[in-house]
């Protein structure tokens, strides 16, 4: 009985689907006044290559049924390839439920309507009309991930099985990054947190509700336990209680001190040298303290940074990063995400948290300006626009770029020069 009931439901659904397709076919026959029996055969008369496509194991249902008119208009269309709708929208006319209404994350290609980046709209050798099978398809775009996963010493077995073990290829209504569930629920599905091994490896700390990916790289790493490649020393030496209260305490995950005061316990030289400067980067003094930019346990990035510097610095300095993105000329250190080439991210006595005392000295660490520029610069050269400022590199350039070339704040060089050299203004 238990077996029969689902079979019955499945049969009803199949019949219903066939009825829909037949009715759709009839509709097309009427719409285009096709000759009896012409539906599906007529197109193949000219498009002979499709005969081969029809031999592939996965064929798009309309094509299988000979309904080319499901997607194409045989006479004329406003869209390329005689499609009846825009290529970016046509799939969603049938596949409406691909993106749930309350999606928390949507695959970029899906949002763009670029379904054909993954699927062949006619037929393919892989199921779901996928252009490639398994992870190869994903790694076609996510190349860096593919290369890193291939190289890592310790692989995460679900990833070996396939990206789709954890990710939904289209959209997720449960989590970011197309995850089928949010972390840690997704991880706990496989890793039972009450097992002695799990408890022991986490030093008896109750981490079941913690975010696993703050320490572990779900895509594999070169460290045992797939910890991120850069691990904070106390974590390596399993000295959780160096920062956290004892595992047996009532609040085991609570840190012993707040903000930068916790880090100062070990990094006292660094913190003391910061506080000796005139200006400390404000986020260090906030509740998050050093964790505004650093991960306390492990990170993919050097210096336990939360992300690359463009991302980390850009969390607050979004306007500066945006200016660089829009800039016609790119300033290399910024383009390469090396904000710390010029700025001290912790503290400084200098303007803009520069590493050097003056703007000219700062720029001169890369630009040997005296050799290529004859424009007078320096403390003794006053800016005609404002005699309280001297002429220096930023008198003409904005180091993070402008919408114009060479980081200048005016559309043309002549417009820039006549700001001071007014006698040449036309």
């Amino acid at each position, binding site marked *: 009985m238990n077996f029969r009931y689902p079979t019955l439901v499945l049969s009803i659904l199949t019949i219903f689907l066939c009825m829909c397709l037949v009715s759709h076919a009839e509709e097309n026959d009427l719409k285009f006044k096709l000759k009896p029996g012409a539906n599906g055969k007529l197109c193949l008369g000219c498009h002979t290559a499709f005969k081969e496509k029809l031999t592939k194991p996965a064929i798009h249902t309309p094509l299988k049924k000979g309904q080319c008119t499901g997607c194409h208009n045989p006479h004329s269309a406003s869209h390329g390839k005689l499609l009846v709708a825009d290529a970016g929208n046509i799939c969603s006319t049938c596949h409406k439920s691909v993106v749930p209404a309350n999606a928390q994350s949507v695959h970029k290609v899906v949002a763009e309507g670029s379904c054909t980046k993954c699927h062949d709209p006619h037929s393919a050798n892989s199921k779901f009309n996928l252009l490639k099978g398994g992870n190869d398809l994903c790694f076609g775009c996510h190349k860096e991930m593919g290369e890193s996963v291939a190289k890592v010493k310790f692989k995460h077995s679900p990833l070996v099985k396939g990206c789709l073990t954890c990710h939904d290829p289209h959209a997720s209504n449960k989590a970011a990054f197309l995850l089928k569930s949010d972390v840690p629920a997704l991880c706990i599905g496989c890793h039972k947190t009450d097992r002695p091994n799990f408890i022991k490896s986490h030093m008896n700390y109750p981490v079941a509700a913690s975010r696993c990916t703050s320490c572990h790289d779900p895509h594999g790493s070169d460290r045992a336990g797939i910890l991120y490649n850069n691990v904070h020393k106390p974590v390596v030496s399993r000295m959780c209680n160096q920062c956290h209260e004892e595992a047996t305490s009532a609040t085991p995950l609570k840190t012993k001190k*707040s903000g930068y*005061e916790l880090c100062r316990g070990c990094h006292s030289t660094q913190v003391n040298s910061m506080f000796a400067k005139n200006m400390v980067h404000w986020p260090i*003094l906030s509740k998050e303290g050093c964790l505004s930019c650093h991960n306390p346990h492990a990170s993919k990035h050097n210096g336990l940074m939360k992300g690359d510097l463009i991302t980390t610095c850009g969390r*607050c300095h*979004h*306007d500066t990063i945006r200016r660089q993105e829009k800039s016609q000329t790119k300033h290399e250190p910024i383009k390469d995400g090396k904000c710390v080439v010029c700025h001290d991210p912790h503290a400084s006595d200098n303007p803009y948290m520069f590493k050097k005392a003056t703007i000219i000295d700062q720029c001169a660490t890369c630009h040997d300006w005296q050799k290529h520029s004859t424009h007078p610069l320096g403390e003794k050269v006053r*800016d005609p626009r404002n005699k*309280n*400022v001297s002429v220096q590199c930023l008198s003409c350039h904005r180091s993070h770029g402008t919408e114009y070339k060479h980081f200048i704040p005016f559309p043309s060089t002549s417009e820039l020069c006549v*700001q001071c050299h007014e006698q040449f203004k036309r």
Partner: protein
Amino acid sequence: MILRATRFLTMSLLLLPAASFGAETMTLKLVQPVLVDAKEGMMKSPQGVACTSDGAFFVADTGNGRLLTYTFKDDAVKGGGEIKVPQMTSPLRLQLNSKGEIYVLDGKSRRILRLSPQGSFLGYLDIQGLPAGAAPVPNSFKIDAKDNIYVLDIFSSRVLLLDPSGNFQKEIPFPPQHGFFTDLAVHTDGSIYLIDSTNSMVFAAAKNAAAFTPLSKSLKADMDFPGYITTDRGGSLYVVDQNGGGIIVLGADGAVRTRMLSMGWKPGLLYYPGQICLNDKGFLFVADRDNNRVQIFEIK
């Protein structure tokens, strides 16, 4: 009597649009830039400015580690005397209380100094009666007309309300979702405003409210990096766009009314401005940090 009432009503109706649209039509006319001290010494990266109704104004000449005192009367600036105390290395922001005492946030010690009107060091703001917890780290503060002090404590993510003697009155925690707060403003009606620089948002707490709620949506399209906020008597909010070189006026509802000034070096333009001060004579003082000057504008 009826005639008076009618006149009053007519006048009120006529003035209503002017009050509502005042901000949209508001412009700033440069009165003059202030460049030097009494000895013709140049300012260096001034980040703070405070002003009084009788025309006095004080400048935090941050790069020179000193304050400068001026008077501004009949469109003329006089003075430029220096205040220097060893406890003050990097003055960032200034406030004055009703007695004329100068409160200074020092960037290096991250403490608030109290100076006499003449500039002698009276002591640090000594906060008494704080609930147990970490010592505050102020990155800004304000003083209201009754000399109550409001401290933006970023270390403990809260605003501290203190009486004029520095006694703890209450605290309001930062809202749960926020970026980085760089300043707060206090209106005469007791409302407190926070400016979230990284999200370009304003949060507000009405008098006696226990929490901050968003007042504006993200204003990233209207400003680059807001660094300072203050209010006028009418309830308009003035936000300094530090990285964009401008001043944005918001209505009491958080909506953008107008943007004033732009980036540059010439008189009347701003380059990474810091603190601003509005006095009740309709003048606006701007610490024009990277132009090494303070500029005085008339609000029209």
